[in-house]
Each structure stands twice: as C-alpha cells, then as structure tokens.
C-alpha cells in the first residue's frame, strides 16, 4: 500500500528547480568540464525519484531525498574515476581518500553551498566568451532545468537550433577552460552586468507577447525573477542594479494577467483592467526599488524600474504621471542611446507634451524600420490625430512585420477601425 500518495505535497516545479540546483552543485564538485556527467547524474536521480515516488508515495523531505541519491551517485562516479586531478583540481586531494570523500561530497549539498554553486553557475553560463543566445539557452538548461525541447518551444524554434546553441556554449566551456568561480574585485561588476543582461533578456523573452503559449511566457518570467532574486541573497552580488532589475521584473510581471484577455488577445496598457494587476508583486517591486535607490546608483535598470513603478501606481492610463515618465526616458536615452529607448521616449512625449512632438520624434528614429511596434506606434499617433489614412498605412506595414498571431489580430482590429469612419 503506498504511503500517502498526494502529488499536491510536491511543490510546483520541484523537479525542474532541484535539477538546476543539483547540476550546479555537481558541476562544482566534478568541475565544470564534467557538466555532461553532472547532468547525467541529475537525470538518473530524477528518474529514480519519478519511479519510486510514483509507486510508493512522496518522501517526507523530497529535496533531501533527491540530494541523498544524487550524492551517492556522485560518489560512485568519483570512485570510478582514477584521475581526480582532471575532475576537480581544487578538491582532488579530499576526494581521493575514502576517509574524506563522503563528507566532502556531503558538504557541497549544504544549503549555503547549494546557493553558492548556483551563483557560480550563473557567472559561468553568462561567461563573456559564450555568445549571448547560447548564454540564455545554457542558463535555461543548467540552472532552470528546462529540456532542449522546452527551450525550443519557448523560443519558437526547433530542437536542433537549441542543441547547437548549447553545444557551442559547452565547447567554449572546454576551450576557454571556464570554471565555476565568482569573479573577484574589479572584474565582478562587469561580469555581473553580463549576468544581468542575460536575465533581462530571459525575462523579456517571457514578457514579449509574441508567444502563443501563456504558460511558457510566465515560466520564463518566473525563472528570470527566481535567478535575479538569488543574486540579491548573496552579499557579493546584492548590488544596487541587481535590486533595480528585480524591481523592474516585479512591476512588469504584475501585469502579466491583465495583458491578455480570455480569448488570448493582447490588451494594451491603456485598456487593461488595472484591478487585475497583481498587487503583491507591485509591493515587492516597490521594496526592491527603494533598496536599489538607497544604494545610490542610476543604472538603466534603475530608470526602467522607476518608469515601471510610475505605471504601476497610476490609477488610470490618463492619470499616469507621463511628464515624469518622459523625463526618465530622456535620462535613460542619455546613458543608453538606443533606437528602442528613443521609441519609448517618443511615445511618452505624446502624453507628456503633444502628439505632434511625438510624431516628430518618431519619424526621426533610425534603425527600427523592421520593428513592427515602431510602425504601430506611428500608426497610433496618426490615428489619434484623426489621420486614418496614414494610420492605416502604418498599421499595415506593422502587420507584415510581425509573425505573432496575437499581434496580427490586434493590428487587423486597428486597420478595421480605420475603415469604419
């Protein structure tokens, strides 16, 4: 008779998250060059859990159970290896002796060490020598426990493309001899910026409304938040900009439910039911923004978080503090003069100053000719200026540039509304 089989006792995503933790711990123990072996051990462990728990019920401490099994498998692996020095040069002498082998391995699975291993893994996955798209794929695979197929689904591409990205990352790990270290001194802030960029992109991938599957989008956002949160827990990485990024993510994520209606159509900020915004996340966002401000820094993440906070506290679209938002975008543009920032700045100016100023700014932007939102935004301004002929022209241009079904539906509705009058 099975013990007390109740799947609800198992935390959501337990396997996925523990997979990320165990891969990090084992890679640190075996050396990152043995990432494959670490992943195999974790896969074996989860398989064993699936079979045993499925038949016999959930153990009292599921994570502890997994760690114990993974630990034993790692010890077996180490005993089979003759060349310890090649495995983990740092710990080889402790792993060579049966007296210290088990206790050394056990120490790696202590709570603090598990967190530390994940931190090291984040820096390794975002190593500057690994191409950006491979960084994200590797992060999702090793730290978030997503399979190649799941990552491919999230990025709307095929398994082969993702396998290649991960393969390239692993090649770099070998060729550049990337180890699981936390960068020290002056190197730290620079390397941390790459980690943050990777997390920012990961979050945006989820937040980007182009994905047809809502659950996948939420998962990516959640993973990005989880890893950014992890950075705030460690004193070396709990920097101002990390808090700012986490704040930004919380504010944005609070709107996830309100951004799509029951039929899966996109709901623009202007028309969102603000009562659907998730208050606890807005509160978290405010707390992290305060922490970020206390530490006195003004990174792009600070400015973006501040903008997001103004939206979050606004009772309605019309009552939004557009003037301050416009000023923040101006500051952001000064430190980050990218066309996408210029686009947002121009949109804000429409509400802060006038539609004419916004249009003038928009038409001056170079480099977004292939971006559908650029054309949508111009269309929007023309529409509000009652110039429906021009509005339609820009909406149509945008329609050709997006592959997202949801975005296309939205644009078709807009085009129709230009014809009605």
């Amino acid at each position, binding site marked *: 008779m099975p013990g007390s089989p109740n799947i609800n006792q198992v935390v959501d995503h337990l396997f996925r998250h523990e997979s990320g933790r165990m891969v990090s711990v084992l890679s640190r123990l075996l050396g990152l060059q043995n990432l494959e072996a670490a992943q195999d051990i974790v896969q074996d462990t989860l*398989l064993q859990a699936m079979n045993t728990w499925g038949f016999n019920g959930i153990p009292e401490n599921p994570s502890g159970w997994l760690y114990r099994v993974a630990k034993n498998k790692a010890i077996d692996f180490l005993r089979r290896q003759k060349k310890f020095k090649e495995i983990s040069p740092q710990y080889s002498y402790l792993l060579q002796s049966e007296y210290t082998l088990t206790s050394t391995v056990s120490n790696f699975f202590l709570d603090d060490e598990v967190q530390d291993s994940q931190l090291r893994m984040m820096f390794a996955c975002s190593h500057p020598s690994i191409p950006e798209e491979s960084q994200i794929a590797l992060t999702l695979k090793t730290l978030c*426990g997503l399979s190649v197929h799941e990552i491919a689904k999230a990025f709307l591409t095929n398994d082969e493309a993702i396998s290649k990205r991960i393969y390239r990352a692993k090649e770099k790990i070998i060729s550049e001899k990337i180890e699981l270290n936390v960068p020290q001194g002056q190197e730290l802030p620079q390397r941390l910026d790459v980690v943050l960029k990777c997390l920012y992109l990961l979050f945006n991938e989820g937040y980007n409304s182009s994905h047809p599957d809502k659950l996948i989008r939420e998962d990516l956002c959640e993973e990005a938040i989880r890893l950014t949160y992890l950075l705030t827990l460690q004193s070396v990485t709990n920097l101002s900009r990390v808090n700012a990024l986490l704040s930004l993510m919380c504010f944005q994520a609070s709107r996830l439910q309100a951004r799509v209606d029951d039929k899966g159509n996109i709901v623009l900020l202007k028309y969102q039911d603000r009562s659907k915004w998730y208050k606890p996340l807005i509160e978290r966002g405010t707390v992290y923004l305060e922490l970020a401000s206390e530490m006195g820094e003004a990174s792009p993440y600070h400015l973006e978080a501040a903008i997001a906070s103004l939206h979050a506290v606004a009772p309605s679209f019309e009552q939004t503090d557009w003037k301050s938002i416009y000023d923040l975008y101006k500051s952001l543009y000064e430190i980050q003069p990218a066309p996408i920032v210029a686009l947002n700045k121009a949109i804000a100016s429409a509400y802060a100053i006038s539609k004419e100023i916004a249009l003038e700014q928009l038409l001056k932007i170079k480099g977004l000719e292939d971006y559908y939102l650029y054309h949508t935004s111009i269309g929007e301004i023309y529409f509000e200026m009652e110039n429906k002929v021009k509005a339609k022209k820009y909406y149509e241009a945008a329609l050709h540039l997006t592959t997202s079904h949801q975005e296309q539906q939205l644009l078709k509705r807009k085009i129709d509304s230009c014809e009605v009058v």
Partner: protein
Amino acid sequence: MLIFQGGGPSENTSPEFMQAQMGKWMAWIEKLSKAGKYVSGEPLLPGGKLIKGKSKTVTDGPYTEGKEIVGGFFILNAENYDEAVKLCDDYPDYENGGSIQVRQVMKMDM
C-alpha cells in the same frame, strides 16, 4: 496482474515532464486504492540478468530494447479481464509508447 512495458522516460525527458508523469501515476494508484482495487505494486530498475540454457549462461538483460523493458507491475483485485482492462484506463504511459500486459494470477486450490 498488470505488467508495464516501455513508455519510460528517455535521456531527453525534462524534469517538468517527469514530475507531471509521476503525479499521474500517483493519482492512478490513489484512485485504484480508493476503489479497493489496488493490492500492491513495484517499479523495476532497468537492466537485470537473463539466465538461460542448460549451462545456465548469465547475460545482461533481460531485454535490451527500450520498448521491451518491463518498468514495473501492479497486483489488482478485479472480477474478470473486462474489469481489469477497464482499470487500465488511467495508465499514464500510453502516449509515450508504453503498453500493459494484463494477466490473471493463478490461484491454487489447496
């Protein structure tokens, strides 16, 4: 007796999928238990040995093909084959290429 063949996860199965699959097994066992049909069951580890012939030759096995591997068994209480087959409705691995052999345990009248 239900003998489960194949349908097990492969090397590329994701942790999330494994957890979901495990949940389905647990829900199935719970359902059978509540109906008073479930007697016992065990999962089996892959691998094993095959002993064969007069010389009792031992080889690795018993099966090498993934789809032939017996992954576990249940002993159920069922009136007849029809009922036993019906109880297999919630087997979670049909979609993954798994199959069930339903066999009646022979009861010896002493």
